[in-house]
């Protein structure tokens, strides 16, 4: 039988029909599509029982109350804790990524000591005896730098420091410190100033980027949300005075452009109208305060100093007077600004405070004592302790000036600039792997206490720094009254009156009380409130976004996709300025420039943004790490290094408001 045309057609048609009807081909195609997507390097999911465990996440400055989401006992994410007044179901962008930070390969995997330029592993026992020996040899010349604003851990460390004869317990510069020094120092009050945003009907944010980086951002946003119900009439007015239209500015009812260094002047300019309207404050120096305001802060003088029109301050004062529960919230590290804001609040009768919780370690410092020492003043006086210990802070990165010490111990959880510089790195257990707590996060409106218990088992050779110090204290014969931090936390929770159990932590909510300051700070404000600027071409207006990171925490793994090209572009930080400023210094959109000031320089791309005060350049803090993972290391430049530190007149606080830089085209 030959192979003719008919046979060929029969075979072709038969074959086509056969292929169409056989499942083999379709199954094979299906398999191909599945198996070409099924590579061994693509992670498989693990399934199991789902659970949520309440915890505290102390990555952001104020801390977030979260629930750690687990599957089959293993954490994979976080969600808000609806039962917590700090969260009410929300979380900040840093703590939203907390589990990924915990699993980051950049974590310090075990205790390390520096040998030459490299690090070598060391056992915890050897580390304890090494630290004890160094401390004994230091004879009291020991400093402790803490970036933890809210934890009872500070009691352990400051109590221990007192035991070895040192008072150099230093807090990283923060807004809380400025407020504490203003209220407890300048104004003679006691306690922590509280801002009851939830119940205020008029909120003036004086430099406080409350919805982005100031204070308990999540609680602030929740308070804002509650007074601005979707689809209904708002029950409060929010205003922001700042040099840059930050993210807070995108939602407030009005933005008032005010230079950062002129914020105290601006507030005293508002006080002028309040006093003219007959407002009075029961403080010993009210007479001199009144005279100072009338002499130096009349509308014309304020406009000449900071460019804010008298009509604007008058209108603002009118709104403050019309409100039933107004509040002014200062931001920044200037003690003068905080004092001016509190003086205005006193005139309005709305200055409130929360009392500190009782200490459980008697030799420890109180919160206000902790906040009273100025770290940068101490550094610039040439302090050179034999031993410096650093906890939850990265001073080598975020201090504009370098600190020196004979022997540096870093309790870093992740490798950072300070850990790389340290002689001994003793990894602290991650926030979900240890007992920790948050007492009255600064900015909160009422007494708040949250306790977190370990909800994740450590997978690395880490140890809670509090337990480490308690062990060292015991070996040196210093009795702090507790053997473990778990006991400290249990005692604290009891002293506070919190509903606490060792399985799920606990919390306590109290109230606020009216604050009573003996003076308004007239003698200090008369010297400290005037704006001071450097001599450079433009004023720096540094701003923070949690998505970029904080003083202590670098950009988290999932954050880079979120960071805007108005902050970082092509690996270079973006300097925003309005068109008038750009024209004045001869640059345009996308120009590559170099900003020089302080102790360094930073490369930047220009972005025209009409939401920046003329004469100012807005730059993001938190970039330009030199140590860390690929999400933060070598990404942009470090703006902290181009800030110019100065001592604020009369208050002695180190501030960098009014820092200027020179601009060169690249």
């Amino acid at each position, binding site marked *: 039988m030959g192979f003719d045309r008919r046979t060929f057609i029969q075979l072709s048609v038969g074959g086509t029909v056969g292929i169409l009807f056989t499942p083999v081909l379709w199954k094979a195609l299906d398999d191909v599509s599945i198996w070409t997507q099924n590579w061994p390097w693509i992670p498989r999911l693990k*399934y199991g029982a789902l659970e949520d465990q309440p915890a505290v996440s102390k990555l952001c400055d104020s801390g977030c109350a979260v629930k750690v989401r687990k599957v089959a006992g293993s954490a994979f*994410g976080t969600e808000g804790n609806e039962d917590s007044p700090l969260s009410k179901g*929300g*979380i*900040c962008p840093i703590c939203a990524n907390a589990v990924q930070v915990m699993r980051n390969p950049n974590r310090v995997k075990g205790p390390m000591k520096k040998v030459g330029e490299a690090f070598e592993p060391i056992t915890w026992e050897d580390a304890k005896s090494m630290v004890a020996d160094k401390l004994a040899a230091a004879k009291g010349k020991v400093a402790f730098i803490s970036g933890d604003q809210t934890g009872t851990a500070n009691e352990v460390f400051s109590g221990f420091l007192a035991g070895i004869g040192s008072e150099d317990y230093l807090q990283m510069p923060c807004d809380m410190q400025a407020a504490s020094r203003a209220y407890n120092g300048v104004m003679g009050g006691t306690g922590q100033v509280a801002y009851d945003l939830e119940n205020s009907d008029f909120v003036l944010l004086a430099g406080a980027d409350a919805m982005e980086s100031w204070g308990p951002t999540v609680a602030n946003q929740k308070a804002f*949300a509650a007074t601005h119900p*979707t689809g209904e009439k708002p029950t409060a007015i929010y205003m922001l005075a700042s040099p840059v239209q930050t993210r807070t500015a995108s939602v407030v009812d009005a933005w008032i452009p005010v230079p950062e260094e002129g914020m105290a002047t601006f507030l005293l300019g508002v006080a002028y109208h309040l006093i003219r309207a007959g407002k009075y404050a029961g403080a010993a120096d009210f007479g001199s305060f009144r005279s100072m305001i009338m002499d130096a802060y009349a509308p014309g003088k304020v406009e000449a100093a900071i460019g804010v029109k008298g009509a604007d301050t008058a209108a603002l004062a009118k709104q403050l007077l019309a409100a039933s529960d107004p509040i002014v919230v200062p931001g920044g590290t200037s003690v003068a600004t905080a004092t001016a804001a509190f003086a205005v609040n006193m005139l309005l009768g709305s200055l409130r405070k929360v009392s500190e919780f009782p200490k459980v370690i008697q030799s420890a410092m109180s919160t206000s004592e902790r906040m009273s020492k100025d770290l940068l003043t101490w550094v610039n006086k040439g302090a050179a302790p034999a031993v410096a210990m650093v906890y939850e802070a990265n001073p080598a990165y975020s201090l504009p000036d370098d600190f020196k010490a004979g022997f540096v111990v870093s309790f870093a959880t992740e490798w950072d600039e300070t850990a790389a510089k340290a002689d001994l790195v003793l990894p602290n257990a991650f926030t979900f792997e240890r007992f920790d707590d948050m007492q009255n996060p600064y900015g909160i409106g009422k007494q708040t206490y949250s306790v977190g218990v370990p909800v994740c088992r450590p997978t690395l050779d880490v140890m809670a720094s509090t337990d480490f110090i308690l062990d060292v204290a015991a070996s040196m014969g210093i009795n702090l009254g507790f053997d473990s931090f778990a006991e400290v936390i249990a005692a604290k929770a009891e002293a506070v009156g919190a509903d606490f159990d060792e399985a799920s932590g606990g919390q306590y909510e109290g109230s606020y009380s009216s604050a009573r300051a003996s003076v308004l700070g007239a003698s200090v404000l008369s010297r400290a409130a005037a704006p001071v600027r450097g001599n450079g071409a433009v004023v720096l207006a540094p701003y923070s976004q949690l998505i970029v990171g904080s003083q202590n925490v670098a950009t988290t793994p999932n954050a880079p*996709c979120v960071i805007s090209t108005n902050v970082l572009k092509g690996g270079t930080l973006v300097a925003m300025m*309005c*068109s008038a400023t750009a024209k004045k210094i001869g640059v345009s959109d996308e120009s590559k420039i170099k900003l020089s000031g302080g102790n360094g320089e930073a490369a930047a791309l220009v972005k025209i943004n009409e939401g920046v005060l003329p004469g100012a350049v807005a730059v993001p803090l938190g970039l330009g790490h030199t140590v860390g993972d690929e999400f933060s290391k070598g990404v942009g430049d470090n703006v902290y290094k181009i800030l110019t530190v100065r001592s604020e007149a009369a208050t002695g606080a180190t501030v960098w408001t009014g820092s200027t830089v020179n601009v060169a085209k690249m």
Partner: protein
Amino acid sequence: MHMKEFKIKWGMVIDIDKCTGCGACMVACQVENNIAPMTKKDPYNYVQALTKDRDDADNKLRTLTWMNVYELSNGKSFPEHEVAYLPRPCMQCGNPACVPVCPVVATDKNEEGGIVSQIYPRCIGCRYCMAACPYHARYFNWWDPLWPEGMDKQLSPAVSPRPRGVVEKCNFCHTRYAKAKDQARENGEDPMNLAEGAYVPACAEICPSGAITFGDLNNPEHKVHELAKSPHAFRLLEKLGLHPQVYYMSKREWVRKQGDNYNAGDKH
């Protein structure tokens, strides 16, 4: 064009006047949906010396942001300038542009709830859907999803990681919908009549400023039902007739005007 109607229509009303652009929703979305951090090096690429690095997050054309927050400006000079933030998930259009163009039916809108599906193993990566979507809500995996060492120890059980060559998008955290329905069945309740809050996507849940309200647009007991009818509510590119299930709200007229893009000088 014929539009499929559903008894349940999950939707969002996003109050732009409350969104601070903080980005928590974008992070929560990545964690919930196993979107890997962008890493430059690929440890499985054994000829790395011969190939260039993977893109990092700086290249916004390569990032996977199912939820993306855009910055809006009123375009005025200082001091009249204003800024706003607009979070953009998948619009779950009533009349989706992406569905009819898919040659392999990897995306469809056929389930009660009106969520536009995306079947990853079926997707052949042709990207017609991406070209069709006017909201840029669809993303192509240019690279395999690789987590830094140890970070993939425990991923979210909600959704499998998608390989290189596949298009993906927001599905209103569909696993949460399935779970909420299961929970309702367990409780002896009607899974087709979920109470407000029983099903909430990760972005809406985490949002600290409560800018995102989520619910069934067809259910009068859900807040979104009324909010979507507000005089301040609008949808993006409404003139295209895709009928998005995501609504926005703003009292600011300039924000509402930017909801539909017009050429400068157009009358509208």
